[in-house]
């Protein structure tokens, strides 16, 4: 597609429920990133996928968080047993990995509210 697409744009859930957030990257982009943007916390790196390599999961805050990327394209971020502190905007970005620096293209984000 023309840009990075994320869904849902808004999600309200009850504490303890599981949620799935979806990211559809730009066609042909080999790298995909998830970031979390919390009020007053800036952008926090969560996870990074690059081609067929093992993902860099070093930013996932707990084992309740997981992500997968199927067929090198669409990615799903899953949060199990949501907590109120999980409330944030979850941003997905993709880039075309090449030598040198990558420019990330961001989606509009999925705003998660845990009641």
């Amino acid at each position, binding site marked *: 597609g023309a840009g*990075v697409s994320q869904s849902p744009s808004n999600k309200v859930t009850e504490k303890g429920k599981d949620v799935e957030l979806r990211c559809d990257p730009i066609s042909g982009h080999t*790298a995909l*990133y998830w*970031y979390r943007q919390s009020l*007053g*916390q*800036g*952008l926090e*790196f969560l996870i*990074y996928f*690059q081609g067929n*390599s093992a993902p*860099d999961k070093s930013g996932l805050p707990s084992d309740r968080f997981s992500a997968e990327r199927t067929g090198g394209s669409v990615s799903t971020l899953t949060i199990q047993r949501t907590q109120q502190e999980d409330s944030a905007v979850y*941003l997905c*970005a993709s880039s075309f*990995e090449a030598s*040198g*620096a*990558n*420019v*990330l*293209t*961001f*989606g*509009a*984000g999925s705003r998660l509210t845990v009641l």
Partner: protein
Amino acid sequence: AQSVTQLDSQVPVFEEAPVELRCNYSSSVSVYLFWYVQYPNQGLQLLLKYLSGSTLVKGINGFEAEFNKSQTSFHLRKPSVHISDTAEYFCAVSRRVGGAQKLVFGQGTRLTINP
């Protein structure tokens, strides 16, 4: 590991006045530097980037930034701001380690333009 510090969380400026948003980074190796802008209720958009070469880089919307290696800074400037520049601005640093690249963001600076 690299980190990014944005020294001002909020910057109020009058329209048509100049502005400087400060960014310092820490890294023991060469890095790539970026400024992203986030308009209200939108995703992040690349403003400009420094990869190598000239230390003064020009971006969109009349913004420019200067890479200063000795001071490990990458401050963003605009000589005359407009109401439409009201947004949150994020400085970011990345470096390539093998085949992977991870972008680390600062906490963000909220720029408010007053008429």
